């Protein structure tokens, strides 16, 4: 009985395996006719000059006028080009414009006549006028319209107070673009590198309508690469743009992106297996990489992270002595080294991160922030003063709003125990998903909040205006005329050294007034195949940037 049964089972098992394989064949055939995925190649190929990389996520929006995230920004930075661009050393260099002039009241850009769209037609000043007008048109509902407020009437148009054709930008001819400023913008050259300022050709956009940028064939390119395939969530392929004006300088023929994932163990496995040319490391992979003696590199992603206070009238955090007490026991070094403990992160003790350019070198080296001497005794004195001023015996529990991420949880719990231990303050952690954290942050429903800010352009103002009373992003409602005055100087002055002095003053006020508690600059660590050179990782702009990348034989 049982032997016969086992024989039957073996047959059944074999039949099962057969059916399983047949199913796979059938399904993969079905997949090829519906065009789902594609087979991935190797990490790099010296002969075809192609590389294989990953993206953290599907790029949500490749319409440059409406895009607001870094992943779309990375893809757009390769397939499109603005008037100017950043080079490998983060200096502004010519893009579509070959020369430019910035005056206190406006700017003029002279476009190169070799700039072409991927269909061979020239890129003209009209393409910029069209794109910029639709950005500020409230019907477009662009999240980043504010970045065009430096152009005359930008804000008024965006608030429906004027029609879009009143925007202060004109095409003098096909190759000369003239911009009128709403207020002086000494860093306008940096602004036009931003995707929101990219050109879009009206006739092409009109031919696609709402489908514009929804698929690879619904995009027209003017950057170093063109997108030849975009299987959503699965696969993207970029190829060298044969119409690009600087095509001779582009040394890669193709960039394959067959992996859309941010899972660092998977990325490292793929890198080990020779399927990815670079991989980002998480803390666990970092240790492994050190053991394997891989060449690990670091870069900062440019963002700063801090604890924001609520300055609304009914909140105890409005009291300077309370904020000072908290400031005097908060040590960014300890937070980065003991709490976050992720390689690549740096302690932050200013509103301005260390990478920001200053007058000649780096801002923070030219204007170091005033030091804070941590002291629990001093902190307790300030706490007592705060209680007296607030007229309470005990500070009520403070609500600490935070994102529901592993890192934010760790930090929030650290603050909770730190402030209990040192100041006997009770902290109530309010953990929320990102959208709800933002909603509560907007509504002022918090005492303290773990927040962060990413830069839009390489000028200290991208962080500096955050705490201006007239800035919609100032969710703490911090309101200090002295601070506002400095922001106005930085916005309106074209004298760089006067602007830098203003930033230094903002930096001082932020610390003096304990407006927020900076904690860290976010960093990333990664490994990369030694055959790949010329990749730029940067805090601002296209990141990572493969425009100037090239392959060499193994060293």
């Amino acid at each position, binding site marked *: *009985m*049982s032997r*016969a*049964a*086992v*024989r*039957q*089972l073996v047959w*059944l*098992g074999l039949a*099962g395996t057969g*059916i399983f394989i047949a*199913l*796979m064949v059938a399904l993969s055939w079905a997949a090829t006719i519906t065009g*789902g*995925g*594609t*087979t*991935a190649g190797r990490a790099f190929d010296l002969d075809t000059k192609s590389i294989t990389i*990953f993206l953290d996520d599907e790029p*949500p*929006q490749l319409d440059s006028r409406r895009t*607001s995230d870094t992943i779309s920004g990375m893809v757009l930075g390769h397939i499109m080009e603005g008037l100017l661009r950043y080079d490998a050393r983060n200096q502004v260099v010519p893009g579509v414009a070959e020369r430019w002039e910035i005056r206190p009241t406006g700017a003029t850009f002279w476009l190169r006549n070799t700039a072409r769209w991927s269909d061979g037609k020239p890129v003209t000043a009209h393409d910029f006028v069209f794109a910029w007008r639709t950005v500020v048109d*409230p019907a477009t*509902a*662009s*999240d*980043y*319209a*504010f970045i065009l407020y430096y152009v005359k009437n930008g*804000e008024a148009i*965006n*608030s*429906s107070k004027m029609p879009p054709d009143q925007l202060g930008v004109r095409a003098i001819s096909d190759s000369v673009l003239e911009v009128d400023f709403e207020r002086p913008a000494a860093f306008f050259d940096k602004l036009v590198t931003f995707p929101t300022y990219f050109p879009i050709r009206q006739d092409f956009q009109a031919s696609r309508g709402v489908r*514009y*940028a929804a698929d690879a064939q619904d995009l027209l390119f003017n950057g170093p690469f063109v997108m030849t395939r975009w*299987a*959503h*969530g*699965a696969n993207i392929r970029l190829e060298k743009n044969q119409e690009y004006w600087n095509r001779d300088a582009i040394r890669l023929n193709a960039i394959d992106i*067959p*992996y*859309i994932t941010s*899972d660092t*163990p*998977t990325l490292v*496995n*793929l890198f080990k*297996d020779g*399927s990815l040319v670079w991989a980002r490391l998480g803390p666990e992979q970092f240790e492994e990489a050190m053991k394997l003696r891989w060449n690990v590199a670091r870069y900062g992603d440019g963002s700063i992270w801090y604890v924001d206070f609520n300055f609304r009238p009914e909140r105890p955090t409005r009291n300077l002595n309370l904020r000072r007490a908290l400031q005097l026991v908060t040590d960014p070094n300890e937070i980065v080294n003991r709490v976050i403990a992720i390689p690549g992160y740096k302690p932050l003790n200013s509103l301005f991160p260390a990478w920001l350019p200053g007058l000649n070198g780096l801002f923070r080296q030219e204007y170091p922030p005033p030091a804070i001497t941590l002291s629990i005794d001093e902190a307790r004195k300030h706490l007592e003063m705060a209680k007296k001023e607030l007229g309470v015996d005990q500070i009520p529990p403070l609500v600490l709003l935070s994102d529901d991420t592993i890192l934010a949880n760790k930090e929030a719990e650290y603050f909770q125990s730190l402030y209990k231990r040192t100041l006997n303050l009770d902290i109530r952690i309010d953990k*929320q*998903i*990102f*959208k*709800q954290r*933002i*909603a509560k942050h*907007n509504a002022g429903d918090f005492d303290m909040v773990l927040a962060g800010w990413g830069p839009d352009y390489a000028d200290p103002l991208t962080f500096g205006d955050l705490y201006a009373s007239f*800035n*919609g992003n100032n969710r703490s409602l911090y309101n200090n005329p002295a601070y506002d005055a400095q922001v106005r100087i930085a916005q309106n002055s074209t004298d760089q050294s006067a602007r830098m002095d203003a930033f230094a003053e903002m930096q001082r006020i932020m610390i003096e007034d304990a407006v927020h508690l900076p904690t860290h600059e976010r960093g990333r660590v990664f490994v990369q195949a030694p055959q790949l050179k010329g990749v730029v990782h940067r805090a601002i702009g296209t990141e990572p940037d493969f425009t100037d990348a090239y392959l060499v034989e193994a060293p």
Partner: protein
Amino acid sequence: MLAYTFKRLIQGVITVWFIATATFFAMHAVPGDPLANERATTEAIRKNLEARYGLDRPVTEQYVLFLGNMMRGDFGISFTQENRRVNDIIRESFPVSATLGILAVAFAAFGGVVWGALTAIYRNRLPDLVITFLVILGISVPGFVVAALGQLALVDINAWLGFSLLPIAGWGSIRHMIVPSMVLGLGTMAYLTRLMRSSMLEITNSDFIRTARAKGLPPTRIFLKHQLRNAILPVITVLGPSIAAITTGGFVVELVFAIPGLGRSFVQSVQQLDYTVIMGTTVFYGAFLVFMVIVVDLLYGLIDPRVRLE
């Protein structure tokens, strides 16, 4: 049979409507602002966005609108991928999830039946003990651990072989499908093995098997026709729901193996409060689940002559 099918389909439609309604109101009750972003926008933009997604109307009106659109099979435009229709997202990524799911279920079903029958035949002997131990392991180890371990093992195998036997991650060819589908099906296979084992044992001791043996039927026939066919019924019962569960629950496997399935949209939409994608994927998955249950009930009638569908 026809009347029964019709009745079940009507019930199914009502169930899906209920799922849609419950999800819709639960979703709107979740705190958070789907349009909020790090960068503040002007009042005018905010109004335009609200109008685009119909958020400027009262919730009940939104609900009526949603139902109307759903009847026409239109779930609207995604909040996060602003120029993509939810229907397109489902149409492009569901086939991937389904492929993975079907393979995983096939793997689980065949494996479960074969291992289950084996353990029953070798009851309390060494093969039974070994397989049962592995089964308990398979049931208790969570999917993401199996997925991560499977991938790690693959890296080492490839490195040891000196060439890429199977890809580590990604999607597109047969070679990409093998490991993820096995990882995804493992838990179900373990569960089915146990189910098959107990059901086999019960039947082996039943009267009609003894009768079959007594009247001198060849053992092969007894095993295939009487034992296996009867024992497999409970397995079929759970197969329908597990197809749906596996297909919809592959998120972790999809994440680890970088597979472009619907699971990612399903999970991310909830985290990002992407209202239209939440509704689209939930209703779609709900309908799929209900449909699979009906199919299994109908199949039951075909396999077991004792079951009458009326």
